[in-house]
Each structure stands twice: as structure tokens, then as C-alpha cells.
């Protein structure tokens, strides 16, 4: 993946990476200015880091600041680099590794379109009820469900809906925040 991880530092003597990758959720506070997202995303692609999920929105309108939540897979050494490289960007104020800092709350929203008739329709509604998904649109042959929760719960709901006539899914990506009284 990253050239700098090569213990030999040479293409003539390649070795394999020994550290295992971990999934971490990072939250990045940035100035909401043109191109800031491109800087963050460009850094990930330029240095060969992974992005599994990305969520961006302005959270402090008066200060023009946005919160970017990134889920990444990386070895501990690369994770430390990701954090430092992000902090190096001029419009980045703070970077927190929520996974490393203890338990955090993680939520995602998804909309699912499911088409079907007869028994499938009943089953669809029963499952939606069990998962506390809301019906936000309905026709005689379809529903659109809104579901929020941890990504794993949404994954499971999608899996269950697949054989019942799932047409399409849209997901927001992860929003995450720490527990307790302290802010970022």
C-alpha cells in the first residue's frame, strides 16, 4: 500500500506488511471554504489511505466550520500518520480519532426502496417494524423506508430486504460523536 511502509524502502527488495489494519472513525473540524473537501480526500488518495465512509456538513454556521467524519482502515502506524497529515492541512483545526479515544456514538441514516405485492409486502412491513424503520413513501406496489442506527443494523436490514424486492438503497455515511460532557 504505502511505499514508506516497506522496511527495505526499495522496489528491488519487497517484503509484505506485517501489521494488521484496523477500522477507525476520525472526526475532522475544518474551515468550510472552497476546496477543503478536495484537500482532505486528495490527501487520502495521494498517500494511499483508505476511505470506507465519508460524511461532511457545516456544523457551525457563524464560524463557517464543517465537521468531516471519515471511517478508514489502516495499521496503527498509518493511522498515526493520517492524523498528523490531516493536521498539517492549513484549514484543518482539529482531528480526533474517536475509536482510539474510547466509546463513541455512531449513527447512519439509510433510505430503502422496496417493491413487491402480496405476502412479500406484509413481510416487508413486519421487518421494518422490528427494525423501527419508518415508511416515508408508499404506493400500491412499493415502499420507501427510512432507517437510522449503527451501520451493522442497517447492513442487516438491507440483507433482509434484498429477497423481498429491494430496488435501491441510499446511505448518508457515518455521523459520530463522543459520549460524556466534553466537546471536540
Amino acid at each position: 500500500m504505502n511505499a514508506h511502509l516497506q522496511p527495505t524502502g526499495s522496489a528491488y527488495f519487497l517484503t509484505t506488511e506485517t501489521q494488521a489494519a484496523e477500522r477507525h472513525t476520525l472526526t475532522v473540524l475544518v474551515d468550510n471554504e472552497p476546496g477543503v473537501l478536495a484537500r482532505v480526500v486528495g490527501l487520502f488518495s495521494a498517500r494511499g489511505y483508505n476511505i470506507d465512509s465519508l460524511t461532511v456538513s457545516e456544523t457551525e454556521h457563524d464560524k463557517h466550520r464543517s465537521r468531516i467524519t471519515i471511517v478508514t482502515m489502516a495499521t496503527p502506524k498509518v493511522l498515526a500518520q493520517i492524523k498528523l497529515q490531516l493536521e498539517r492541512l492549513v484549514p484543518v483545526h482539529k482531528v480526533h480519532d474517536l475509536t482510539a479515544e474510547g466509546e463513541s456514538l455512531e449513527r447512519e441514516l439509510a433510505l430503502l426502496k422496496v417493491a413487491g405485492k402480496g405476502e412479500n409486502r406484509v413481510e416487508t412491513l413486519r421487518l421494518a417494524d422490528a427494525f423501527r424503520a419508518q415508511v416515508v413513501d408508499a404506493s400500491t406496489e412499493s415502499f420507501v423506508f427510512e432507517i437510522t442506527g449503527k451501520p451493522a443494523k442497517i447492513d442487516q436490514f438491507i440483507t433482509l430486504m434484498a429477497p423481498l424486492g429491494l430496488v435501491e438503497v441510499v446511505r448518508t455515511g457515518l455521523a459520530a460523536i463522543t459520549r460524556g460532557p466534553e466537546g471536540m
Partner: protein
Amino acid sequence: MAEQMTGAEMVIRALTDNGVEHIFGYPGGAALPIYDAMFQQDKIQHILVRHEQGATHMAEGYARSTGKCGVVLVTSGPGATNAVTGLTDALMDSIPLVCITAQVPTNLIGSDAFQECDTVGITRSCTKYNYLVKRIEDLPRVLHEAFLIATTGRPGPVVIDIPKDVQFALGNYYQPDVETLRHQSYRPQMDGDLGAIEAAVDMMLRAERPVFYTGGGVINAGPEASEALRELAELTGFPVTSTLMGLGAFPASNPQWLGMLGMHGTYEANLAMHDCDVMINIGARFDDRITGRIDAFSPGSRKIHVDIDPSSINKVVPVDIPIIGDCARVLREMVRVYRSKSNQPRTEAIAPWWEQIDEWRAVNSLGYKNSTTTIKPQYAIERLYEASKAQGKDVYITTEVGQHQMWAAQHFHFDQPNRWMTSGGLGTMGYGLPAAVGVQVAHPDALVIDIAGEASVQMTMQEISTAVQYRLPVKIFILNNERMGMVRQWQDLLHGSRYAHSYSESLPDFVKLAEAYGAKGVRCDNPAELDAAIAEMLDYDGPVLFDVVVEKDENCLPMIPSGKPHNEIILPDTANIGSIIDEKGRQLV
């Protein structure tokens, strides 16, 4: 008080307010308003280049030799894309540049207009920061912020893209207070943590086999950093080595100097790095050309790392004591803390270490077999060094990239910082000639020499025309071996001596070429006549292209092959470098 003026006038005004005296540039349609504003003033001198890449390297040479910010002005589209190589070079070597690129008018942005390109998109990854200024109200702040960002913290290039209509627009110019600049997030840490500095000094006081490993950060932190390094070295008695970028920060004439380290560093510097017990890295970044094989890099040492960029810490090599801060400030603190704990160099404790180092020195790893029939490149640089020393002038050296660059680093010696300009990180062939022009602009009375190769120099050859136009007496010292020598050396080492496109066919006659440009040409292929030819070059008051015809197949040694540890260095007495890497290693290619 705010003053009303056009965007183009603001550019000139902000440059003046930031103490800019010279800018390197090339005009074009979108840049015309700024050029018009420049025409109507005489505070800033504009140097007209022949290609925008040349402008960026000139600004780099200017910046490195003065410690000031280099300034570039180019037009939209191809003007901006031609500047990309120099911007990347400046980013890799941490050189402060402000590059103003003109852009098509805002109403045409995104329409694939004539000479339009996505400059901020293209330069995002090769600048420290960049701006597209769409509103005249933002221009004064951006212009001043750009200088702040380029020159503070870890220096780097900043691009300001200004659409033509914004250059024409009227607005209020003001000089913003640095503290109220918009980016509250940009606050580089200057002072090192005192606890960490104390711990580092304690570690140094217990060291038995210490070494200072210094880098470009010491140069970037200004002459005070070099002074503090010299003081600390004298105080401790420790040996000092440096990366390519840090040459001159510590005097080469000092007995504590081990020479450069790394792939083509000296035997004593690399072995000292490998066997040390305490490594003190000041402003270097454990580049792969320094470390060689990382899992075998200095295995028994504890490491102190001083760097202004937190992301340099533990990026490649894990360290025991990281100190984030400006090299000058941290070194001064180290001197103060060291003095408070001891007033004796650790001469006795490290005497066995020096004995060991002297044994390594005795190997004479920079030795070479001289010849009476052909000029050896090392000999040519040695003679150039002696002759330039005798001139009694301030001497500045720039280089291109390749064997000649490494030979220059090995055989030309520097006692002062800011005298050595080379493309270290990006390794840009074609850097040296324009960089020499930039240095000469900043130091009109100095002796400025580009030690070049015949392949590299042809990449930016046209800038000799700039030197002629501005009467800049740069000396281009071409070690002509009719080879891309370093490529040829690697092909011998690792690719079975199959010389795929690594030789220069149909080379120009450099003497005639020089004359065609209005410069002087000198050629020499006889070792006995070399000194006289060098004198002829140095005595000429104007730019000179000196074609030194050297030994074609000389190898640049010593060498640590890529991916090998420091103690597997190839020494000059090795007859056949093709046998160094075994068959198993070659199959991994």
C-alpha cells in the same frame, strides 16, 4: 488606512509591502493587467525567463541563497502547468515560494476557455496551500497570508490564482494584521517542549557513540540555527554528518565533520549512523536515500528527532524523543540546557568512538583512481573547488541531478549555510541552471557555479538566454560523459548492463551553443589543461558554458544500493559493481 486600487496594483503593492525586490516570470493574456501595473513602478525588478519551470527554479535558488521568499508570476493555463515541476520541487525541499498565476475571467471559469486550466486543482497536491481569489475583497488578505504560510513553519510553495477580472476590479487595499488572518487553524509550533529537550540532553550526556544527523531544516531555520549547531557540536565534541540538503550548516573544514551520509555518503558517516548509540536528528526526515533498508537502519541506537513538522515524526523511523519545533530555537535551548548540566565535552567518554571513526576514515571512501589521459569527474570538481576558493569571492554552487550532483556533494566543500542549492527531494534534472540564475540575481557579486551534467542541463538550457539578457555571470560547469551516468550506473548494478536509452546521442557542440546564446563557451578534455581552462571560465565577466569532457563510465561511489543496510556499502575499490546484487535479488525486480 484603506486605499482604493485595482487588483493588479494590489499584487504589486502587497509584494512591495512584503519586501519583495525581484520576481521571476513570464507574461501572457490573463496576466496582462498585473504586468501593466508592474510597468508603472520601479521598486520590483522582474526577471523575464524563457520557460515557467525556469522561473520556479530561479525563485528556489533565490530563496535558498537568501532565506527570503522567492516570487514567481506566470499566466493562466500553460503558464501554470509549466510551473508545476518547480512547485513540486519546492514542496519536497521545503523552499518558501509565492507563485502568482493568472486565471481566465471568473465568468469564463469552467467553460474550457482559451488558456484555462484548473490551477488550484492541479497544484493542490504540489503546494503547501493554494487560493483561487474570486472576489477583490479577499485579495489583500490572501496576498499577505500567502507570504505568512510560505515562510513560516515548514516552508513551502503557495499558489495564488487570480482571474483577470479580479485584476481589473477596484477594491480597498489594506495590510491585514497577521493575527487576524482568517486561518486560525494555521499555528506552527516554534518552541520545542522543554521537558523533551532536557531528556534529550540527558541522553546526550550518557552517550558513548553519539552522532548528529542534520538536514535541510537547519538551513531553513536561518543562519542562527547553523551557529547554534556549531556551538552544540563544540560543546559536546560529537561527530556531525548531514543530508544532501543540510550541507554547509556545519563547516566541512571542521575535524568533527564526517561528510555527507546516505546512498552516496562517506563510509565513516554511514557506519557511524549504523553503529551509534544515540542519534540526534536535527531537521532531517529519514528519507529513503538516507536510511537504506529501514529494518536494518541504525539498529542499536536511541533516537532524538527535532522537526518543525509533526508529521515527519515517526513517519519512517520510530524515535525515542521527538521534539517539535524550529531548529534554531531548539538548538539554542539544547545549548543552554547542556551548559546548565555540564561544561565539559564528553571527550574521554567518546574517545573510543572517535578511534573507531578514524579507522573508518582511513578507508578513504571518496578516493578514486586519477588518470593522466582522461579527466576524472571527481578530479574536475576538486580542481574547481580549489580554483574557486582562490577567487576570494563568496561561492554559491547549484547542481542538476545525477552522478555529477553526488560528486559535487562529495568533493566540493561548504563552510557556510545557504551556499549549496540542489534538488534533493524531487530530484529534478534541469534545476541547476535556472537556480544559478536566481542565486546570481540575489548575489550579483558572488561566484555562482552550476555543476551540471550534459543530459540534465539540456532540460532547461534555454535559461542561459535569461543569464545573457540580465548580464548574470553564471558559470555552467558541465561534466560531460555522454551518459545519463546515474541511470547507466543502476543499469550496471541491477539490470545486467543493458543500457536502455541511457546515453546521449547527437549532443550539441556546447561551445558553439554558448556563442549562439551570446555567452562564452570553453571546452577541455585534457587533465593537464584543466586548471587553465577553469581559470579561463572564472576570469570571464559573463555567463560561461564549460564543457568538461570526462571519463565516460566512472561510477559514483561509495554507494549503498537501494534496499541495503548502511554496513553493506560499496566502496570505490570494487571492480565490478554488476556482481554486488546476487541473482536472487535481481529476480525480484
